[in-house]
């Protein structure tokens, strides 16, 4: 279980979090929604320890991680798999080396076993036989899927998806959605997804939370979100420019 308690964060003058509280139960798929630049990606980067809050606590399986030293944090990070918005594949390595990267670091498998594991992960995401290709030879959708294979290779307990469907066509976006659901069912992982794509959010989640103005302003199931009377959530989920959320056009 992951528990975020009253975290505050500012970047110079820009206040991002004004007391965020959130609880993520084991085995669920939670989607954090919110407008561009509201801090969704910053929130999951706090959970995995890439960023530190100015104040507040983050518990991963009852262990407070914000004050851990580097070595202890690396131990906690072994529980995480992270799919970055830009895929973040290592340009200098081929697909096999990218997927095997985390496994080689763990030093618990022989090279033969690593090769087998890479094949298994690539097969799970439907991309067999591309082990020797470089990231520059892959399409946007393929890069995201390879990044997903890399994220699941080490058998993480929690998988974080940062805008998994952004920048790819709607059909490939649906393929990614199906993959997230498939991995959730077959690997029994806890998935934390950040997106502003409501089609994706409704399809993959069993829990949704909305981040607005530095706080979580609402939580619930997809059906509860569809019927909500909260004007902020309603405006966001229906994608209307009319409502309490004002966008700066100029």
């Amino acid at each position: 279980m992951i528990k975020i308690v009253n975290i505050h964060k500012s970047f110079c003058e820009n206040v991002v979090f004004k007391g965020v509280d959130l609880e993520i139960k084991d085995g669920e798929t939670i989607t954090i929604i919110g407008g561009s630049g509201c801090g969704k990606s910053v929130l999951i980067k706090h959970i995995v320890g890439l960023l530190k809050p100015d104040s507040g606590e983050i518990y991963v399986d009852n262990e407070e991680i914000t004050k851990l030293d580097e070595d202890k944090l690396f131990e906690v990070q072994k529980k995480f798999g992270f799919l970055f918005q830009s895929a973040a594949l290592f340009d200098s390595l081929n697909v096999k080396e990218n997927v095997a990267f985390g496994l080689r670091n763990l030093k618990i498998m022989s090279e033969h076993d690593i090769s087998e594991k890479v094949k298994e992960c690539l097969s799970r995401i439907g991309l067999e036989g591309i082990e020797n290709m470089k990231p520059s030879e892959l399409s946007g959708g393929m890069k995201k899927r390879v990044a997903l294979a890399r994220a699941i290779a080490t058998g993480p307990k929690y998988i974080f998806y940062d805008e998994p469907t952004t920048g790819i066509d709607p059909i490939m976006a649906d393929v990614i959605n199906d993959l997230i659901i498939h991995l959730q069912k077959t690997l029994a992982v806890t998935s934390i997804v950040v997106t502003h794509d409501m089609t994706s959010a409704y399809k993959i989640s069993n829990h949704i939370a909305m981040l607005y103005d530095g706080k979580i302003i609402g939580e619930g199931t997809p059906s509860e979100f569809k019927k909500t009377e909260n004007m902020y959530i309603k405006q966001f989920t229906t994608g209307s420019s009319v409502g309490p959320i004002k966008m700066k056009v100029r």
Partner: protein
Amino acid sequence: MKIFWLIGEKFLKLSEELGCAYKMFMQILHTFLTGKYDKENTTYQMVLIGVKSIPVILLTSAFTGMVLALQTAYSTRNIFNEPIYIGSVVGFSIVKELGPVLTAVVLAGRVGAAIASELGTMKVTEQIDALYTLGTNPIRYLAVPRFISMVIMVPILTIFADIVGIIGGFFVSVYKLGIAPVVYQNDILDYMRTEDLFHGLIKSVFFALIIVTTACYKGFTCEGGAEGVGRSTTQTVVISMVMILVSDYFLTALLVMFGVG
């Protein structure tokens, strides 16, 4: 009043950057001393930084030695009516100054820029964050191999530059100016000492530290997409070159004070 505020702000920002760069240098040094670094990547970086820089270093140092011999000959001919002490001037200038400084300046442009742009691109495309999430410390995996390669390869390249520069001067002296080979050789061996060679090599190690620390710091702190990568790369080259030339004066004064060269 506003001018003081602006100067103060710039000064604070510079102090903060220097502090962060120093902190990164200490992290690199600490990781290196604990032996936690990627050995395979270190070998690869040595080839990339050292072996692949050999042609450009040899070319620049050969022509520097040649032009130095030519200029010395013209100058001494004007004063003494004949070209004298060419070997000594070429030898001292190359070994103590031009060898280490030119090698460092060329490497700041070739290697410093490459390190900053590679790490900067990795930063803006979230590859450095990905390393963290895959249980790898980027300092250990990216910075330390480059640090070790620079500290080893820059002095080696400086020795190559010294040798080729002196040979360049030799060819101009013998085949263009008509000086006997033994005279050029004696000019070097009679006056130069081993300390003069160490003088240049010690400086080259400091220059390597300047280049690699600046490049890694600018790469790891790069922000703002392609424009940010370009800015970090330019800043790395400019800062490294200026620091090499400024520190050269102080290092020379210090080494002479301690009797090294």
